[in-house]
């Protein structure tokens, strides 16, 4: 790894560890390997959002050309959000692409991702299905996102009706993540989700 990238990540790591966010437990950063090229981030869901009470893990890959190019970051914890792929965890965020600036740090990026959870940008979606639900039925979107937070991120709110429907599909032999995606995609209409899965 290029010298400047490794040195900078080390300095950043120190900065993050001293930050009030780490002290307050809203973000975390861990090293994955000794060469400083892979890290794991952690953010907690912001209050007053469907992600509240959830803990979301992020995969961070630092390119050799860092900080002249942005880190590659995706959600490892599954999440229902218009700007995150519900399948791959890929994030659509301008500062991770054409709005990257070399003075941004892993700390500011993690805070930006956390801010994205409070303020989605449905007009610049990563996941078209999620964005459509967000625009057309925000209440259902909020319930779905809360359910995902409960199922994957340790969020506190179980939604009984949704869990029941997932269970129906599990009993039919459908794999759990697939069942959840199908139901979420078809606005929790069991019939349409089943039809989609078995067609």
């Amino acid at each position, binding site marked *: 790894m290029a010298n*400047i990238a490794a*040195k*900078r990540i080390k*300095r*950043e790591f120190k*900065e993050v560890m001293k930050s009030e966010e780490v002290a307050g437990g809203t973000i975390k950063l861990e090293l994955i390997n000794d060469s400083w090229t892979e890290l794991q981030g952690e953010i907690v869901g912001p209050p007053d959002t469907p992600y509240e009470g959830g803990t979301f893990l992020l995969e961070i890959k630092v390119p050799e050309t860092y*900080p*002249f190019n942005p880190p590659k970051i995706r959600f490892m914890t599954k999440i229902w959000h218009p700007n995150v792929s519900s399948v791959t965890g890929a994030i659509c965020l301008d500062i991770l692409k*054409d709005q*990257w*600036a*070399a*003075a*941004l*740090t892993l700390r500011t990026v993690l805070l930006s991702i956390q801010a994205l959870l409070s303020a989605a940008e449905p007009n610049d979606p990563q996941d078209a299905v999620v964005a459509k639900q967000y625009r057309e039925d925000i209440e259902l979107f909020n319930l779905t996102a809360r359910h995902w937070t409960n199922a994957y991120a340790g969020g506190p709110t179980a939604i009984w009706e949704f869990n029941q429907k997932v269970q129906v599909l599990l009993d039919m032999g459908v794999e759990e993540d697939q069942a959840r995606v199908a139901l979420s995609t078809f606005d929790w209409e069991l019939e349409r989700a089943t039809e989609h899965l078995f067609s």
Partner: protein
Amino acid sequence: MAGYFEEMGWAELEDGQQPNHLLDMARFLIDFGLYEDNFTGEWPRLPPPASKEAVQSLADVTVETDDKSCPICLKKFNIGDKAKEMPCHHQFHAKCILTWLDKTNSCPFCRHELPTDNEGYEAFKKEKKRAEQRKEDIETLHNSMFS
């Protein structure tokens, strides 16, 4: 002449009446489709490198405090260190900022833009500025007419 005014739904000025320039301006903007903000373009990728001239004319400075660090490599500056200063007064190691400006034209700290050698991008910037000016003009006009 009267026929033309009627057709347009306008009235000829009476003797001694002053033209309403604001109203004329508003009509002009609407007639030429400028009322809608047609220009919503974003530059679809990282803007191009800073121009050679802009890079060459960056100020060389000597750092006078030891409480700042280079925003690119995050290394602390010592008093007496040489640095390059952008027009926005942000200071960097020469190697750090030159590498960045070779990639894109703005200050990595505050996004202050330097000129580029890319004609397409410069034309885009001008058009964007014009669109913003137009929007401002229309707002000023709107406020003065309806407030």
